């Protein structure tokens, strides 16, 4: 492999590396989003059995969420 070819390969390797690192960064963002979505899902599921906080009419979201959760 001549020295010229080495440089060409190096150039394309740099491009490949940059692209893969970009994908990794996207993956990190996706991971963070997954984490937050999961937290929110748990938050919503926890509001399901809200016995100790009766709303003014006693209806609130609980019945709908309960039925949706089933």
């Amino acid at each position, binding site marked *: 492999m*001549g*020295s*010229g*070819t080495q*440089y*060409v390969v*190096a*150039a*394309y390797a*740099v*491009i490949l590396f*940059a*692209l893969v690192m*970009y994908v990794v960064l*996207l993956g990190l*963002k*996706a991971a963070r*989003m997954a984490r*937050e*979505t999961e937290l*929110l899902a748990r*938050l*919503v599921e926890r*509001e399901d059995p809200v016995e100790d906080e009766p*709303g003014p009419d006693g209806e*609130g*979201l609980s019945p709908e969420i309960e039925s949706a959760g089933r």
Partner: protein
Amino acid sequence: MTELATGGRRLVVTGTATAALLALSAVGIFLVAPEDADQGVIQRIFYYHVAIAITSLVAFGVAAIYGIRYLRTRRPEHDMVSVVAVGLGLFFSILVILTGSIWARASWGTWWVWEDPRLVTFLIVILLYSAYFMLRSSAEGERRARYSSIFAIAAFASVPLSFYSVRVAESFVHPVVFNSTGANMPDTMLVWFVVAQVAMLGLFLTLLQIELLQRRADDALKRLKLRLEGGV
């Protein structure tokens, strides 16, 4: 919701096409295209180097166009496209510098040459658009979007001026016409330049779509969070 769904479908199309074109161009560049008489194998760097350079400029152009659109419509989606496009433009610009530097090392023995107007222009471009992000972090909300749009337009206007000033300056100092891609390119080379170019543009579009989808999802997530934390 349906926007995100169709976005996914569009992404499959552009992504697949891009992947195919990238593979095709790689094969073409290394196995099919003839070797350059003057520069030898090193010239093969140019296929991607030039394609990435042009794509980077397209990205900045898209940012400027969406800057104009934001100023007209004030829709945050337009500002979002603008900022993502600038980010991608910067990403590609850095690649231009890196590949250009490797080429310089291969041709001239040094990691940098001030004589190549493209290399110097992209250095200026990187400085310019890095400032774009400084500007963004200095303002908030609607003003941030507005200022970013204005700067995206002004910055893009300065790019051709930078390129020509560097080239003119160089032509006075070094009268030798510095033409790195060759005056008459045979069609067997040109076709692979075109393939590489389309592949890179496709890459830009794909990455743009991915980032926009992610940002939209992030936005929706934030709105959801606010709703749930704000109380029942």
